[in-house]
């Protein structure tokens, strides 16, 4: 027994020591950041281009430019998407992270709640030229409303309807559908030619939530009450989810097999001419690498219930994109701010967004000819006029998971031939809502 006691005591002592040290680890940096090492910066870039190697090739010349201007050397690491959030979480917990980093813009509110990111108040925004330089909708996805943003928009994207020109021509469809009814009607003509109508990633939780959110807007359902409580089971929310799932269950425009897609199979199906339409954000590069020529497909705004895209019930896309944030524990706060200013300057915005086929969230940069091609014009207009940010609440990632999962299960029901009714949708959403955190 003696040994056991000795071992226990040893373990306890070591645990205490390490726990104390570990707890201290998180709060080493004081809250505002410091300027202890003004000549270097570490930057975690997200993987935007076709590969990490290409991203480095795109970024390095710009970073060199920055070093020439300011004398600050930026060490960039392109972090794969699979690792980015985990890396940020561990960095937040330990205080050991980069100075500047890219985040998915839907993470903004959740990361803001951790207090690990520098708040962009008006003064801080002033240092990079003011809030007014940025597109309104992109700013809407930088943190909880009424609080200082946790990040600055860097790249923007929006959903669009990609359609196969040849299949449309064969089916005798003159122009892409502007409303869901038209889409369903066009679907009948396309099916008559033996093609599939619309591709979807039914088992991909994030894709589901993006679409359901937009349908929610079109039905006037917000999914959250103004004070941030989950509200998934309103009649409007049920109608919204049901309409999306009904594209497979009732209207039969989404093939049943798509219920299990989660590996971008729907993009391959579109690229190989199996399906006629696809709702996607910035699919151009993807389609190209799958061997589909740019002349073979057209890009149109995502359909709405009726009329033309606009705000509120005429919303037809979420605001997708990347934000840039400064890590609070930075020891080069001025340099980090300067770097954000550099990356969001008109000049760099044009270069970077062109390279990554995204749309600049900076108004002046949008004027550039590169973003006025027919394809980009659709995305740009969507962002400017008819895109809405996902709910900016701290529980956003939980919302994505539980509602996205509910939709996935409803798709599975539809695929198995089980009926999807108002009641079954409501039950699924009810269950999702109960899984949300109480606070």
């Amino acid at each position, binding site marked *: 027994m003696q040994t056991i006691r000795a071992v226990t005591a040893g373990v306890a002592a070591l645990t205490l020591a390490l726990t104390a040290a570990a707890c201290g680890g998180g709060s080493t940096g004081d809250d505002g950041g410091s300027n202890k090492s003004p000549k270097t910066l570490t930057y975690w870039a997200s993987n935007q281009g076709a*590969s990490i*190697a290409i991203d480095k090739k795109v970024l390095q010349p710009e970073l060199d430019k920055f070093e020439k201007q300011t004398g600050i050397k930026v060490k960039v690491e392109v972090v*794969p998407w699979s690792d980015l959030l985990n*890396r940020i979480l561990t960095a937040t917990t*330990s205080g050991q992270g980069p100075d500047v980093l890219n985040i998915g813009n839907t993470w903004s509110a959740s990361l803001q709640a951790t207090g690990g990111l520098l708040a962009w108040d008006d003064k801080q925004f002033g240092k990079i030229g003011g809030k007014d330089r940025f597109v309104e909708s992109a700013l809407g996805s930088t943190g909880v409303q009424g609080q200082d943003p946790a990040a600055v928009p860097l790249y923007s994207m929006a959903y669009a309807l990609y359609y196969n020109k040849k299949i449309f021509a064969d089916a005798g469809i003159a122009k892409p559908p502007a409303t869901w009814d038209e889409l369903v009607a066009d679907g009948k003509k396309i099916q008559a030619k033996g093609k599939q109508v619309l591709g979807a990633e039914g088992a991909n939780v994030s894709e589901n939530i993006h679409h359901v959110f937009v349908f929610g807007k079109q039905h006037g359902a917000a999914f959250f009450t103004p004070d941030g409580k989950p509200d998934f089971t309103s009649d409007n929310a049920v109608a919204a989810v049901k309409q999306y799932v009904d594209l497979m269950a009732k209207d039969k425009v989404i093939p049943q097999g798509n219920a299990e897609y989660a590996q971008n199979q729907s993009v*391959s199906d579109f*690229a190989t001419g199996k399906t006629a339409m696809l709702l996607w954000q910035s699919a151009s590069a993807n389609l190209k*690498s799958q*061997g589909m020529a740019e002349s073979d497909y057209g890009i149109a705004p995502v359909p709405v219930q009726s009329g033309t895209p606009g705000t509120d019930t005429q919303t037809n896309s979420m605001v997708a994109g990347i934000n840039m944030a400064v890590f609070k524990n930075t020891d080069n706060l001025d340099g980090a701010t300067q770097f954000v200013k550099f990356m969001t300057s008109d000049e760099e915005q044009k270069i970077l967004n062109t390279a990554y086929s995204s749309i600049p969230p900076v108004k002046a940069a949008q004027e550039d000819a590169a973003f006025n091609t027919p394809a980009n014009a659709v995305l740009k207009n969507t962002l400017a006029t008819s895109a809405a940010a996902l709910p900016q609440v701290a529980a956003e990632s939980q919302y994505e998971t539980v509602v996205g999962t509910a939709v996935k299960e409803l798709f599975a029901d539809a695929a198995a031939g089980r009926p999807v009714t108002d009641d079954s949708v409501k039950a699924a959403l009810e269950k999702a809502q109960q899984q949300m955190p109480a606070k």
Partner: protein
Amino acid sequence: MPRKPASPMAAPRSFLWSRRIFLTVLTGFVLLPVYVMLTSSLKPLADVTQSFRWLPSELTIRPYIDIWSTVPLADYFVNSLIVAGAATVCSVVIAVFAAYAVSRYTFRGKRVFTVTVLSTQMFPGILFLLPLFLIYVSIGNSTGIALFGSRGGLILTYLTFSLPFSIWMLIGYFDSVPKDLDEAALVDGCGPLGALFRVIVPAAIPGIVAVAVYAFMTAWGEVLFASVMTNETTRTLAVGLQGYSTLNDVYWNQIMAASLVVSVPVVAGFLLLQRYLVAGLTAGAVK
């Protein structure tokens, strides 16, 4: 005495037939996904998720060329080799010592040690992640030894991951080495370590090789810890492979090609090692 077939009697026909059928079916089961991987790795990207055909219509070796430039595969490979190699060597040596102590000595706390070690296998790895990262960071802050982001930290982590099972397995193997053998060595004047390395280890070679293979594969395939504990220069293969999926694109064909390419040396290593898996007791028994 060379090892003879286990049964001195001629095997009955029923045995031979069931063996033939079983091994054929099993080979099919094992190789089917490998075949799919191989053909997928030779397809253009758009064809990978398309209808399955036993003989794909269009083949290309492009993916095998592209894999090297899409991600720095060679660097990752070297990292993995160093990390997994070092973790294996350390883990096996440490486990041999520990298993020897447990197998051949009586001491207080033995039971506590073995059961505690085993209990570490019961906690989901995902919950180790944050505390361990915090510990490494605080060690780094207080001593200046950079454990996170370095190969050293990863080696430390992986060698410990494989320790519990290695120790337990080796205890079993060591126990099955007859005690007369090492006692004879002790009588001959070997110290305890001499008895361990001259008698027990050679006799338990198959077990040690099996444990080494296990330790290597544990380090080789681990994803979660590597994903937060490495950076660009120390990233291992298991994580690096995910670099083939980007925001908009997933290069399935290249993932398959790269996986096959990096697995070839490992399988070749198995081929070389497998004869040690069947050495064993006889080697020690000669002594």
